[in-house]
């Protein structure tokens, strides 16, 4: 296995790999996402209770799920960069954090839009909503720390430590917010009182989930490529990549 992983320590090799993978993920993401979303938003049957307003689920649920997955991926990368000092894994933090933050924002905004017709309010201090909002703050902290240093290597390490501290705290925050909510207000809203979802609604949701996953990977790869180029600027292989020939100075 190490023989496979070793060449990836070289930024150039990682860049080439990302470059090769990116079109596949992009094409698949566009394909799966457009099938899933058109199916879900247009053809899936309307909910007997919520009417058409439930259709926002096809954006809201995948965004909410992957907003958390991206944070865990980021924390795993943080662990790798702190233990094995693999710097590309540190650049991955910078590449993944904005994607995760945007997914969190999408989940919050679509949640508010969904909440208005179904719960009658844009925002309630529900445990899940609050946890998601705090997740957005955690992303903001990691990003702010990454960019706060003159020396980008230090920013990367600092962001990695913070991401790990955050991942230790995430369960505590989630649990305490849930506890706080049940204490402060009775469960006035029972959300996903899962009337186990019908297959005609489930298939487009699964496709949308897969599509969001592919899209997240594609966006992270794109940003990772960019970050590798930015960090390696001035190296011969970069100018060869960008201008087609090695620069002389």
């Amino acid at each position: 296995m190490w023989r496979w992983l070793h060449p990836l320590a070289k930024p150039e090799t990682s860049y080439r790999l990302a470059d090769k993978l990116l079109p596949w993920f992009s094409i698949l993401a566009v394909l799966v996402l457009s099938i899933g979303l058109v199916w879900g938003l247009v053809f899936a049957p309307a909910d007997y209770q919520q009417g058409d307003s439930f259709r926002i689920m096809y954006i809201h649920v995948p965004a909410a799920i992957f907003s958390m997955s991206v944070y865990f991926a980021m924390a795993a990368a943080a662990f790798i960069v702190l233990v094995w000092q693999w710097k590309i894994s540190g650049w991955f933090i910078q590449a993944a954090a904005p994607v995760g933050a945007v997914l969190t924002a999408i989940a919050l905004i679509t949640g508010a839009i969904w909440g208005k017709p179904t719960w009658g309010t844009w925002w309630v201090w529900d445990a899940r909503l609050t946890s998601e909002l705090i997740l957005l703050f955690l992303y903001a902290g990691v990003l702010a720390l990454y960019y706060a240093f003159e020396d980008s290597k230090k920013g990367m390490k600092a962001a990695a430590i913070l991401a790990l501290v955050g991942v230790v705290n995430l369960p505590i925050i989630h649990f305490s917010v849930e506890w706080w909510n049940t204490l402060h207000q009775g469960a006035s809203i029972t959300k996903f009182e899962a009337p186990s979802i019908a297959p005609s609604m489930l298939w487009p949701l699964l496709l949308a989930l897969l599509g969001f996953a592919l899209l997240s990977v594609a966006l992270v790869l794109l940003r990772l490529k960019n970050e590798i180029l930015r960090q390696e600027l001035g190296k011969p292989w970069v100018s060869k990549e960008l201008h087609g020939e090695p620069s002389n100075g």
Partner: protein
Amino acid sequence: MKLSSLSLIMWVIRRDLRVANRQRSEWLNPLIFLLMVITLFPLGVGPGEQILSRIAPGIIWVAALLSGLLGLDRLLREDYEDGSLEQLVLQPVSLSMTGLGKIVAHWLLSGLPLVILAPLFGLLLSVPVSAWWVLTLSLLLGTPMISALGAIGAALTLQARRSGTLVSLILLPLLIPLLIFATSAIEAAAMGLPANGQLAIIAAMSVLALTLSPLAMAAAIRMSIR
């Protein structure tokens, strides 16, 4: 000279206290800030006893968090600038132990005064006398967590630009559980209910933070000094 961990911790604490004693305004300012914030609320929402005692736990704890974050810069910045932090890193003992000493010293200067002043806060915000004991206990058990997590933040932002707002930005989300349990403990006590459960959870979180944060702090200091 070779130091054992415990004597090193004691030495760091004594040293930090001596330095603080020579610049008293440095650690008094956050306390005065805290008192001012607590004065502002009755002026802002009106002096009615009922509304004040309803929101008092939240005010006291939000103010405690903010003033705790204000004083964090003092924790490592000066040692870093005059080079003594480098000397501490070079000691042939674990850097986490030095970090633990600095956390304890910071708590003695920023957390302990809050515990002592707790009845005064209760008095000013008309917290029922029956809840003063729990208010004091919540501050006693909870403020070490502010110092412990704050030390991570201070160490991470040692070399950062604009570190003031940055520390608050990265730490406040992590301190939310503390705020939730501390205020709910005081509210429960004000209603005459037992608050042992909440206090136990606060104590558990503080112990966890005190155990793990010296490690993260040491890693962050090593990253900064290199």
